[in-house]
């Protein structure tokens, strides 16, 4: 009976599915090192992604929830504390007031937040044709796309949670000529994946723009292409959005293993006790 009802419910819902399938192209699904039950961040990728953020995105986008010290935290890009101290010192940070009551500038320290490129949102908007570049700290968790029926049900079982990351790469690589007859307003750029297809952000990445660390053979182990930059910076942003992801998945596996054993033991105890009576 239960099964039959579920089938009927599925049929009812299935019939109405075509009505929602018209919301534009879904981002392609990519492979991520942090996906799945044993997923974790790839240190080298986070370091490359950080380089992309620093050299390209940081001129427009803030990273307000991240401190320099986070960069040497376990489960992150794996910089050493000395590297982080040196890196922070390259930035000028406003501090104060001092004893005389004046604000002053000093070299950054690991405990400082990443300095934002603009003093406030209005300044950010004014410098970018009226649209402020949003803070990137939480971006892969703050964006998604609709999976639709029945995929959203399967996602709960397959642990698909990388929709935000897929979307980010799609936007960063989605700059194309506007199709014929589509007029892009002044200051806008055509993008196949941004909702409405007109984005205020100019195409931020181009091939060869960021120099990646060289391997033993004098070549970068990964291609220096827009596609690779987009994946790396997105992985880095996923880490800024969820800095404890590694620990979460690791502990989660232990917790679930423990609960499985506990449930097994409780089940046999229960069976033993209930075997005393007919039920």
């Amino acid at each position, binding site marked *: *009976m239960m099964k039959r009802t579920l089938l009927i419910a599925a049929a009812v819902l299935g019939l109405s599915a075509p009505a929602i399938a018209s919301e534009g192209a879904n981002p392609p699904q990519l492979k991520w090192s942090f996906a799945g039950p044993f997923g974790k961040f790839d240190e080298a990728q986070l370091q490359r992604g950080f380089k992309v953020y620093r050299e390209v995105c940081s001129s427009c986008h803030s990273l307000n929830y991240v401190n320099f010290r986070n960069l040497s935290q376990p489960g992150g890009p794996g910089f050493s504390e000395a590297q982080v101290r040196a890196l922070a010192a390259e930035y000028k940070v406003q501090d104060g007031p001092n004893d005389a009551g004046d604000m002053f500038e000093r070299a950054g320290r690991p405990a400082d937040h990443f300095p934002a490129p603009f003093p406030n949102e209005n300044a950010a908007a004014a410098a970018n044709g009226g649209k402020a570049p949003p803070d990137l700290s939480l971006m892969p968790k703050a964006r998604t796309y609709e999976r639709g029926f029945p995929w959203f049900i399967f996602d709960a079982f397959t642990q698909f949670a990388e929709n935000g990351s897929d979307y980010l790469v799609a936007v960063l690589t989605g700059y194309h000529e506007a199709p014929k007859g589509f007029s892009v307003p002044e200051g806008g750029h055509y993008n196949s994946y941004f909702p409405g297809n007109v984005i205020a952000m100019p195409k931020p990445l181009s091939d060869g723009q960021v120099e990646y660390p060289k391997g033993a053979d004098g070549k970068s182990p990964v291609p220096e292409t827009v596609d690779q930059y987009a994946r790396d910076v997105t992985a880095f942003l996923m880490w800024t959005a969820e800095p404890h992801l590694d620990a*979460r998945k690791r502990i989660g596996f232990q917790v679930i293993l423990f*609960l499985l054993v506990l449930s097994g033991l409780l089940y046999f105890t229960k069976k033993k006790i209930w075997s005393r009576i007919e039920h």
Partner: protein
Amino acid sequence: MSQHSSTYVPKSAFGKWFESRLPIAGLIHSSFIVYPVPRNINYFWTFGAILSFMLASQILTGVFLAMYYTPHASLAFQSVEHIMRDVNFGWLIRYMHANGASMFFVAVYVHIFRGLYYGSYKAPREILWILGVIIYGLMMATAFMGYVLPWGQMSFWGATVITNILAAIPVVGDTIQSLLWGGYSVGNPTLNRFFSIHYLLPFMIAGVVILHIWALHVPGQNNPTGVPIKSDKDTVPFTPFATIKDLFATAVFMILFAWFVFYIPNYLGHADNYVPANPSVTPAHIVPEWYFLPFYAILRAIPDKLGGVIAMFASIAVLAFLPWLDTSKVRSTSYRPLYKQFFWILVADTLLLGWLGAKPPEGWYVIVSQIATAYYFIHFLVILPLLGFIERPLPLPNSILESVLGQKGGAGLPAGANAEPQSKG
């Protein structure tokens, strides 16, 4: 409860001294040790224990969150991020709390539909049932206010939509709205109020839960046959029988809970709530949490604002009248071939409403919502009262014991448990 307390005899001198002044050990003994439970109850009866566990989990994680959370419009979002990033295991506590709310509702929906299926709301359990409906209402209020606290886009706009519809209530609507707002729109005073009430309500829930269990222990538990307990042979003592079964079921439920917390902690949330609240940017779709979706669909199905509000509240309130709307004397749906079909149609209708609640209110979604809403009310107000007169129930077993032993006696399943609906419909 009191009728069993006489069996408890304190052993130590201190125990005797204490028990004669405050007989709490006897109360616990009679309620959770010797309390007789029907020997045939199935796993659907473990959800009460699961719900108690979830309430405790929500209160515990909530108290820890409140140590770091700042209820201020310009700091709330940031303080939640502080919990997620800098507080030791803050991410765990917060994900447990956010997903715990969902698990709480998963459990309560199973619990409620269990009651609907086995007729647990019928005499003599009407008060028990109504207390359950009150708990459900309090849970919804708590969860709604909790969702506002992180002060993301969906928090802010969800609060705006819901407080705006309250204004449609005649006479007192405006007053309720400005009391909740503490100003002329959703803002910092609203957040302060919601935090205070969000902290208060769970303890009120705990209080009503105690009444709920009290009202349960007077008539005793219902069971899959719906036949009342007739002798001691129909029952087993709560401990160890129900205790171990509840523990096992809770452990299994915790696996589901852990799956969400550790692997897909944001699956049930909205991406928009990771964007700080911004009164000047409206999100493309304002959608409530999944557990409110059927009611949200009902609210929007009615073209009139006041009508929508009335329908939404009525869809919950109607549950409280079930004991009198259902005219059948037979409790368990296993013996009600016609009602069994309508029960499953109602389940499908609620799922459909839930799905519609997540869709924009346009085109034929609206029409389907209206049909599904109408059916929801027809089920309770027309079908249920009439069925009691029309339906010919299957023969009931004489006792719980008989249904259990009959099963072993070669009949396969207890009478009726495998009875497929017989009508031609």
